[in-house]
């Protein structure tokens, strides 16, 4: 199926793929999703793939990762593994409603969509587009539609399924919805799924996304998440990226916040060869509050790149970005944090902070704060630090008998915990503390009962 043709541009390859496969793609998806494809492919044709000449992708070598030899399949996929046997995510004391995505497809356990206790509806994106067309149509493609990123157009053109979560107005669900996104195959694989999380007025949701790779093949995921938070809705999104180092993960998250809504997202990047997270937030109503946070732990040849764009288009909103990371060996990290305060967005409070620790001389980090402010009565700040572990603190601990290695771990862990402590679900926070601790110790940071050894 997949061929590597160096002299044909990536764009041409995918345009051709679309020409050949659009029938199959549509047949295995839903009309509402299909409706946006032709327009999206036109956009891809115009925008192309991002390359390093583009300001927003200065350090990400998108071309190489897409040129890997990967299977792109659009029909039913036979999974030659018993997922339930291999994968059992056992987070102690964390009671979740579990949804599985396998290679970008909703993993059917007899029910494509279900109503969870409390009234949240969750399941297959494809099915939701058929069963809840009026809701899906109102939101699908609406928040990512203005993107200038060819990769988003690529996803819209090819995505066939994903996860749909809907909290109707007033429905507040404490129990987290857990989405386990698994890549598993006996050959290299590309997946492009599409998630849609919708919250009506005064609704509340906790969503946890865990990304795993369960076989030692090259994987590429290019996924788009659209999030709508209605007035006064509350949503906590936590993502744990834990794929092996032969995998590529590109995520695009578009959140649209109405007045008084509160959205907190934490992206914990533990493992993965090439990770690029794009986080776009639009503050569309007054008194909305957004916390976008991330923790990246990279070693060997890992590449982790976070790009955050907070668009304050309404007055009296608050946003806070906190991204921290530790880079070891020859790892490369990048962070771009953009705050746009539009002309009418008076009384905006917008903050940003990016702190990285470099463990070796060969590890690198690029940090770019970008503030664009058109209103005159705002409070905005940004800070970026890059450094080594505090030698004085290390000596202090060693002088108390704590080994050098242990002292370093304690300091790194304290550094990382700054991000983790903001995760609101306690059991999840404790679990992530534990995973991060193991990750920093160089032990495997996979879920307890998962037989595969990611990383």
């Amino acid at each position, binding site marked *: 199926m997949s061929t590597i043709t160096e002299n044909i541009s990536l764009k041409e390859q995918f345009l051709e793929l679309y020409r050949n496969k659009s029938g199959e793609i549509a047949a295995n998806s839903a009309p509402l999703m299909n409706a946006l494809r032709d327009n999206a492919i036109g956009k891809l044709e115009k925008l192309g793939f991002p390359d390093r000449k583009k300001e927003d992708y200065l350090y990400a070598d998108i071309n190489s990762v897409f040129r890997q030899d990967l299977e792109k399949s659009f029909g039913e996929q036979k999974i030659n593994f018993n997922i339930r046997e291999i994968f059992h995510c056992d987070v102690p004391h964390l009671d979740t409603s579990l949804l599985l995505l396998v290679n970008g497809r909703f993993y059917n356990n007899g029910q494509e969509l279900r109503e969870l206790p409390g009234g949240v509806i969750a399941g297959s994106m494809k099915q939701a587009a058929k069963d809840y067309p009026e809701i899906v149509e109102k939101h699908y493609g609406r928040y990512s539609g203005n993107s200038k990123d060819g990769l988003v157009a690529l996803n819209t053109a090819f995505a066939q399924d994903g996860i749909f979560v809907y909290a109707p107005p007033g429905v507040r669900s404490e129990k987290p919805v857990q989405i386990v996104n698994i890549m598993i195959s006996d050959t290299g694989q590309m997946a492009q799924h599409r998630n849609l999380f919708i919250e009506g007025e005064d609704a509340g949701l906790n969503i946890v996304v865990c990304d795993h790779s369960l076989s030692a093949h090259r994987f590429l995921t290019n996924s788009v998440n659209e999030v709508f938070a209605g007035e006064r809705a509350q949503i906590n999104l936590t993502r744990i990226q834990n794929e092996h180092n032969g995998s590529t993960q590109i995520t695009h998250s578009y959140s649209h916040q109405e007045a008084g809504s509160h959205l907190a997202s934490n992206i914990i990047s533990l493992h993965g060869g090439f990770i690029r997270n794009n986080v776009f937030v639009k503050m569309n109503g007054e008194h909305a509050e957004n916390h976008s946070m991330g923790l990246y732990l990279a070693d060997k040849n890992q590449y982790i790149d976070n790009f955050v764009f907070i668009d304050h288009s309404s007055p009296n909103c608050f946003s806070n970005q906190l991204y921290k990371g530790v880079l070891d060996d020859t790892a490369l990290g990048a962070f771009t944090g953009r705050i746009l305060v539009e002309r009418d967005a008076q009384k905006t409070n917008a903050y940003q902070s990016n702190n990285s620790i470099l463990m070796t001389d060969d590890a690198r980090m690029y940090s770019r704060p970008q503030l664009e402010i058109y209103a005159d009565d705002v409070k905005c700040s940004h800070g970026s630090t890059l450094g080594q572990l*505090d030698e*004085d*603190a290390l*000596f*202090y*601990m*060693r*002088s*108390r*008998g*704590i*080994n*050098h290695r*242990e*002292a370093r771990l*304690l*300091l790194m*862990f*304290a*550094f990382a*915990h*700054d991000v983790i402590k903001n995760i609101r679900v306690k059991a999840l926070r404790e679990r992530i503390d534990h995973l991060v601790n193991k990750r920093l110790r160089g032990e495997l940071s996979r879920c307890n009962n998962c037989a595969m050894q990611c990383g």
Partner: protein
Amino acid sequence: MLVIKDLKVSIDGEEILKGINLEVRAGELHAIMGPNGSGKSTLASVLAGRELYEVTSGKVTYKDQDLLEKSPEERAKEGLFLGFQYPIEIPGVSMVNFMKTAINEMRKHRGEEPLSASEFLKKMREKKDLVEISSSLTNRSVNEGFSGGEKKKNEIFQMAMLEPDLAILDETDSGLDIDALRIVARGVNNLKSPHNATIVITHYQRLLDYIVPDFVHVLYNGRIVKSGGKELALLLEEKGYEWINAEEVNQ
């Protein structure tokens, strides 16, 4: 317990210690006094293993072993403790976690089982009372947001927890009000036994009103220029370090 012979130490090519000789036996309390810049803190740091300094000659024997060969943590595990002049703040590392890790590392070194959570908390409670340090401090990150006095009390608290054989207290009295000074001194006196030794480094005689040394040494310009009993401290207080200067010149 500790024997320092002709110790010379430089930093960035500049010689700070120019041949220190000192012997400390179990059960003794030594005070090292001297003006600013005489090398007091350098001596303390070198003994604790700070790597900023270069030992150019001399020998330090601790418990009949070469001290300078050992890493800071090995020294600590062998019972050497440094009370910092400027204790370090470590945001995000809780006092409890810090002390528990330290104590269990030491126990492991001695071939003992780690303390259980309840044993550890019991020990914390006992030692907290000794230095009158409040629980609100031990529940926080190490030294973070502590006042100067609280930081110094916290040093004595750690010393009480770790029960060292040789404690070196670097200007533990500086910046303390009289109440905190009394508490610190009481901690030091209570922890003193015939089996351990203490070196108190201080600028002022004041601390020695509460902690009575067996020996007083005057460190001046990188050398110990005078040693004597506790009366030497009083003489210094009366005549000032200028007096040493004059003596030096006369010699």
